[in-house]
């Protein structure tokens, strides 16, 4: 497995608090990676560091071996990296249709989003701020799917979704890696459903890596009673 993007010895501080204590996290190319950890474990911070919206206080970000630590977030996005943050992942004042127009010009290009989330078809004219939390998640993930980005980083994509919808969401993301050849990184609290098929699982605990390996490895369950 070649590495698509990785953190090396990454430290991140928010004022006096250090959220990542120098972590090494590698995401294999064209595969599904799952970041597990509780609130405050550093999951979101790791994704934000990869996407470039928080600066590192130490360490590096490598993308296909190239050091992109100093690259602006918008440039990383233009190079094909899409992060769906956990909170405020949509533009509340735009309609669903306007969201789609941000990433794809022609109407036909939206098909993957409707295949993944048929419910969105009937919501095109609605302002996203008026949608439910779960529907907003679908719009946010759709943006990443349609964007053509090769690296998808998703922070709790199943949040606010009913269990069946969350399972479907995870299935869609797993397929993006398996069939679409995209590098997909999902941060969640638990390893459920299609996420069990991940190539690599990283478990974060208090800003450090507690486990890295395949979900089937013997060490996983024992060392991840986080």
């Amino acid at each position, binding site marked *: 497995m070649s590495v698509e993007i990785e953190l090396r010895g990454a430290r991140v501080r928010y004022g006096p608090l250090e959220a990542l204590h120098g972590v090494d996290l590698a995401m294999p190319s064209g595969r599904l990676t799952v970041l597990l950890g509780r609130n405050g474990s550093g999951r979101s911070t790791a994704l934000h560091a990869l*996407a470039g*919206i928080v600066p590192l206080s130490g360490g590096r970000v490598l993308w296909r071996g190239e050091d992109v630590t100093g690259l*602006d*977030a*918008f440039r990383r*996005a*233009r190079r094909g990296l*899409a*992060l769906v*943050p956990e909170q*405020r*992942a*949509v*533009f*509340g*004042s*735009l309609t669903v249709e306007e969201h789609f127009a*941000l*990433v794809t010009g022609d109407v036909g290009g939206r098909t993957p989003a409707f295949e993944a989330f048929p419910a969105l078809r009937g919501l095109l004219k609605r302002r996203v701020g008026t949608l439910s939390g779960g529907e907003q998640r679908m719009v946010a993930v759709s*943006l990443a799917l349609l*964007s053509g980005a090769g690296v998808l980083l998703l922070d709790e994509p199943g949040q606010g979704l009913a269990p069946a919808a969350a399972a479907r969401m995870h299935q869609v993301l797993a397929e993006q890696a398996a069939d679409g050849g995209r590098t997909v990184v999902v941060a969640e609290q638990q390893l459920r459903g299609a996420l069990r098929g991940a190539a690599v699982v990283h478990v974060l605990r208090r800003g450090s890596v507690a486990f890295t390996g395949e979900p089937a490895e013997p060490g996983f369950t024992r060392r991840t009673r986080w």
Partner: protein
Amino acid sequence: MASLTVDLALAGIAVGSAAALTGIGLIVTYRATGVLNLAHGAIAMVTAYLLRQLVVVWHWPTGAAAALCLLVVAPGIGVVLDLLVFRPLAARGAGTAETLVATLGVFVLLVGAAFLAWGGDARADVPSLVSARPVTLPGGLSVRLDTLVQFGAVAVVALAVAAVTRWTRIGDELRAVVDNRRLAVLRGIDADRVAAVGWAFGSFTAGLAGVLLAPYLRLDPYGLSLLVLETMAVAVGAGMRSLPAAVFTALVVGVAQSELTALHPTAAAQPLVQAVGANLFVVALLVSVFVLPRIGGVGAERAAAALTRGRRTTSPVGWAACAVVLLLPLGLRAMDLYAALQVPALAIVLLSIVVVTGYGGQISLGQAGYAGLGALFAAMLSSGTFFGLPPLDEFAALPLAVLLVAPLGLLTGWPAIRRRGLALALTTFALGVAVSRFVFAQPFFTSGLVLNRPRGLSGDRAFYVFELALLTAALLVVRNLHRGRLGRALAAMRDHEQGAAAAGVPVPRLKLFAFAVGAASAALGGALLGMAGRAFDPADFDPVRGLLWFAAVVVMGADSALGAVLAAGLLVGLDTGTHEGVSALVVGVLAVLLGRFPGGLVNTVLTRREERGAPRAGPLVAPDAVLTAEGRRVRDRVRSASGRGP
């Protein structure tokens, strides 16, 4: 009568339109960049001066001059400010206070530059872009062409903003950035480019407002800048959000201000109505800052702490040098000594900013108001015009004036209990402007005043010694606010207000205390300033001058008393030694560059020296290799005893 009402309304549209343009520009810049540009008025002023220079002095055709000023220079100023000043600040994650000081720095810099280039005299010959000839509208109404153009300019600019945000790519990007900046960046939008466009557009509206307004007034570096700054009220009133609300407020206030001139109330109310009528935008600013306390105040925790180093460095060398410099004028010729009289007085005024902002962490842009009140009260008390009191001896009038002004510190102290950062800065500034307009500019308070020096101190030399004695006393008091229990409580409040309250520090009371002490100090300095010049001169306490003072203190180091004394020397020395305006230029440049030496000049110099002398103890993350074997044993013993890791 009806036609008079209409005429007045049309006259009001002139200033209302300029205010509307200001409102639109300030809001667009704020939404695109998060910065409330206090330098807006100064950009308007400089553009108007430049137009006059091109047309009146260099005889350019008006059209070409206007095109250069409005389409190239004004937007260019905005882009340059963005590139050189505000983008580096944003990249560093600078907070509200630092950005605010940078905008103040730009303001002061431009005012100083205008002073140097064009002098302080008022110019009445700024060319109008459009003639004032009357045209008859279809309804039979006769309107001046320039009024029509002004109104049209607002309509065109407002519609253009609406159209651009609706239908263009940069408009989409702007809407995305305004809606959710982080997400816009994640979608590949270059937020810096959007910010640059916001700056360019904001500066363009400033230039347009300045060029449209200038023919109606006499142009001088202070007046137009301050007027445009007052019209900031409409942007604040619109919550820094809604363009239609800002335009509507601007036109309503402009028209109302004009209509009030037709009102002829009873003689007793006459001065008040006139004052309100002439300053309705100041009233609007006061109302909006008091009704909307939350503007920009969110997330401004530790706002002013960023302006300090919080380091209790004392510098005997610095103080000794300072003492020598202060004693030097005693050997000077009479003329130079007279100029030097301002230094200790101004130093005492500036110490009030050290107390309130540097120690207490509360941004106060209104200290010039308290200084002026000190001078005014001292003059009124000694002239016998203070609400029925008999004339007092100057030795009694001086301390009494200080004691009377101290409780007025609650005027800004009370709002400060609930406000922070930008909201507090605007509130204190609005109060300062209000005091200037409704007290200092009113004959009711200022007619028939004489202000003499205390008996036996009328000679310059004797008075200077008296000032030095009072400065020494003030410095000793200020030192007590920087040490001991009181100093620690103030520093805690400045560094982390909630944390200080959680530790039991009575934060509201301490804020009131800081503002009262600050008001008293400013009043003492102001009264001495008046006595030095033997008159109460409102121009000495102009709100714009207050902004210069604030910037000067922050540049030297907001929490440095030594810096305040040096700042006073610098301000007086530069202006009397060279040209008026040089000090503003220097302070402005330094304030704009403050990001390069956070904490101020004095602190930076002291820290450098300290670091050369003795290397600072590094952070506690001491890697094991640094400890000797004995050290490790000790540490492990301590760890196991207390049950704590490193």
